[in-house]
C-alpha cells in the first residue's frame, strides 16, 4: 500500500532514487548542498552522495545551466536547480540557445539530457520575483520539453521520466503544492511518461484543460457544476511540450466546448496555443468559442488582497464554465 507523501518529498524521492540507480545523475544549484535547497527539496542528498554529486554553486544561473550542458556532453544527466523559476531568466540563453539547439546544430549526433528544475507559481505571497510562471517561454522554443506536475505522484514520476529523457527538460514544480499536495506515491519504479495528459474527471459537457496548481480549483469548480447538471471533463496536461494533442482532441470531440485554465498571464500563455490548436484542428466540433481563465496581464503583487485578485480560483472558473455551458 503506497504511503501518502508530500509533493516536495516526492521530488526528493525521485532525485535520490535516480541518483542511486545511475551514478551519472547529479544535482547542482544554489544552496542545494549542505543547506538542502531553499525549500528543502535536496535535503539529505549531500549527506548520502557527497559534494561531487550535490554541487553547491555560486549565484550563477547561466553557468549552472552551461555546466550541466558540458557534463551532459560527457554522458552525465545533471539536474540543475533554479532556486526560483523567476531566476530562470538569468539562465535563459543557455537553455534556449545552447541546450535547445545542440542536437539540431550537431546534425543529430549528440543528445543533451539535462533537467532544469524551476520552482514556480504564486499564492505564497512571494511578490514580483518569487511567484512567476514562465513556462510559456520554453514551450515556445523547439528542442525543449516542458512538464508541470500537479500532484505528488506525478511530481515523482515525471521527474524520473525527465531525468531519463535524452533531451533538455524544464521541470516546473509549483511552490504552493510543495507541502499542501499530498498523495499516495509508490516507492521505486513508477515513471509518468512525458507527453501524456491525464483525465482527472470525466464529463460530457465541457472540456477543461489545465495543469499545475490550477488542477485543484478546476476540480472544485467541476464539482459545483456537476450539482447544476453540467459534467466537466478535467484534463491535467502534465506535459506542456510536447502537448498530448490526441487526448485534447478526443475530449473536444466528446464535449464540443473547451475552457483553458492557467496561472500564467493570458497573452501568449499556453491557453493561446491550445485555443488556436483546437480552432485549427477541431473547428467543426466546437459549439462555443474557446474560453480562458488566467492571471491577468500584470505582475505578481505582494499584498495578499492584490495577489488573490489576480489568481484564478474555483469561483472564477465556475463563472466561465457557466458561460460556456449556456452558450
Amino acid at each position: 500500500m503506497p504511503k501518502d507523501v508530500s509533493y516536495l518529498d516526492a521530488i526528493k524521492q525521485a532525485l535520490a532514487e535516480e541518483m542511486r540507480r545511475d551514478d551519472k545523475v547529479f544535482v547542482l544549484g544554489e544552496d542545494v548542498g549542505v543547506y538542502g535547497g531553499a525549500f528543502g527539496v535536496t535535503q539529505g542528498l549531500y549527506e548520502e552522495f557527497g559534494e561531487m554529486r550535490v554541487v553547491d554553486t555560486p549565484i550563477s544561473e547561466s553557468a549552472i545551466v552551461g555546466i550541466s550542458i558540458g557534463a551532459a556532453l560527457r554522458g552525465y544527466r545533471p539536474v540543475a536547480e533554479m532556486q526560483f523559476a523567476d531566476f530562470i531568466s538569468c539562465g535563459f540563453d543557455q537553455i534556449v540557445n545552447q541546450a535547445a539547439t545542440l542536437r539540431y546544430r550537431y546534425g543529430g549526433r549528440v543528445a543533451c539530457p539535462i533537467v532544469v528544475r524551476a520552482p514556480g507559481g504564486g499564492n505564497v505571497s512571494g511578490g514580483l520575483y518569487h511567484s512567476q510562471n514562465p513556462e510559456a517561454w520554453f514551450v515556445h522554443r523547439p528542442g525543449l520539453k516542458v512538464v508541470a506536475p500537479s500532484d505528488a505522484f506525478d511530481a515523482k514520476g515525471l521527474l524520473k521520466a525527465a531525468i531519463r529523457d535524452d533531451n533538455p527538460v524544464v521541470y516546473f514544480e509549483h511552490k504552493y503544492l510543495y507541502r499542501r499536495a499530498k498523495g499516495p506515491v509508490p516507492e521505486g519504479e513508477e515513471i509518468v511518461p512525458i507527453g501524456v495528459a491525464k483525465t482527472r474527471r470525466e464529463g460530457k459537457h465541457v472540456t477543461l484543460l489545465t495543469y499545475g496548481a490550477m488542477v485543484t480549483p478546476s476540480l472544485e469548480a467541476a464539482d459545483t457544476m456537476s450539482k447544476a447538471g453540467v459534467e466537466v471533463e478535467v484534463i491535467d496536461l502534465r506535459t506542456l511540450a510536447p502537448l498530448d494533442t490526441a487526448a485534447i482532441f478526443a475530449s473536444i470531440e466528446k464535449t464540443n466546448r473547451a475552457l483553458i485554465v492557467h496561472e500564467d498571464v493570458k497573452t501568449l500563455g499556453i491557453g493561446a496555443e491550445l485555443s488556436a490548436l483546437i480552432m485549427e484542428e477541431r473547428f467543426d466540433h466546437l459549439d462555443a468559442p474557446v474560453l480562458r481563465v488566467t492571471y491577468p496581464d500584470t505582475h505578481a503583487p505582494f499584498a495578499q488582497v492584490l495577489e488573490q485578485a489576480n489568481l484564478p480560483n474555483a469561483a472564477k472558473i465556475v463563472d466561465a464554465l457557466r458561460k460556456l455551458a449556456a452558450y
Partner: protein
Amino acid sequence: MPPIKRTKFKLSPEQLLEMFYWLKLIRAFDLRLSTLVKQGKVRSGVYTGIGQEAIIVGTCYGLRKDDYICPLHRDLGSFLMKGVEARVMMSQMFAKTTGLSKGRDSALHSGVPELGIFGNTSMLGANLPVAAGIALSYKMEKRDDVVIAYFGEGASNVGDFHEALNFAGVQQLPVVFICENNQYAYSVPIEKSMAIDDVADRARGYGFDGVAINGNDVLAVYQATQGALARAREGDGPTLIECKTYRWHGHSEHDKAFYRSDEELAMWKSRDPIPTFTTYLRTRHILDDDQAKAIEARVEHTIDDAVEFAMSAPDPDPAEAVTDLYA
C-alpha cells in the same frame, strides 16, 4: 608568473615542421574561404582568423584525443588539428549534408563529441560555462584530461565569462582559458570596452594565474599552453593565457573594417606569425626549399580536394529542416 621559458617543452625538427604545416594549412583554408565568399560560392557566416593562426597551432599542437576544446568562431583550424577532415569542414561552410551540422548551420556551431570538440552558439562566451561543465566531469572522474576554452577579449565582458571563470577557480577545474585578444570586438576597440590593458588581469579575481603573451609567436603560445596543461593535469586548476594578436580581415567577410587605420593593419601584418616562424626554422636549418615546396603542395592539394568534395556533395533534403530536434 615567471617568464615563459621558450625551451622548456622540447620539440623535434619533425614536430616543428608539423606546426609549420598547420600554420600554412589554416591560413590557406581561411584565405580560400574568403575567396569563395567573394565568388558567391559560400554564403555568409565566414569569420576568418587570418593573422591569429599561431594561437590555434600553439594551443592545439600535442593535445590528447581526450582533451576537449571549446573554440570560438574564428577557430576553424582547431577543428582540423583535433582531427576533423578538411572535406568535412569545407562541407560545413558550403551547408552540405556532408558537413558537421548537415546544413543546419554554416559556421562553427557544431561539435564532434568523439574528437573532444564543442561547437558554440553565436552568443560569445557562452562556451565557457560548458567548458567548465566538461572540466567538472573530468574532475569527478579524477582524469588528467584538460579542456581548452577559447574566447575573444570582447567576450571577456560577458557575464558567462565571469560565471565560468569564477566556478572554475572555486572548483580548481582542469581548464586552460585562451583569450584571443585581437584588439576589436567587431568594430569596438579594446579601450572602449575595458578599463584595463590586459584581459589576463581578470584571472586574479578568480584565484588563478593569468599571463599575457605574444599571440603571434607560435612557440611562445605552445610553451605557455604546455605549462598550463601540465598544471591542470596535476590538479592545480585553471590558467588564463591572453594571446595578443590581430585579425587581418573584418569581423566577418562582409565587414570592410573601416574603423581601423591602414597603418595599424600594416604594423600588425609586419608581425605575421608565419614568416616569423619560417625564419626561425630556416635559420636553424630545419626547413629548406624542397620541404617548403612540398608543404605548400600538400596544403594546396588538401584545400583543392576539400572544395571539390564540398561543391559536389549533396544539398540537404528540405524535410530535414524539422528533424534532429529531439533525441
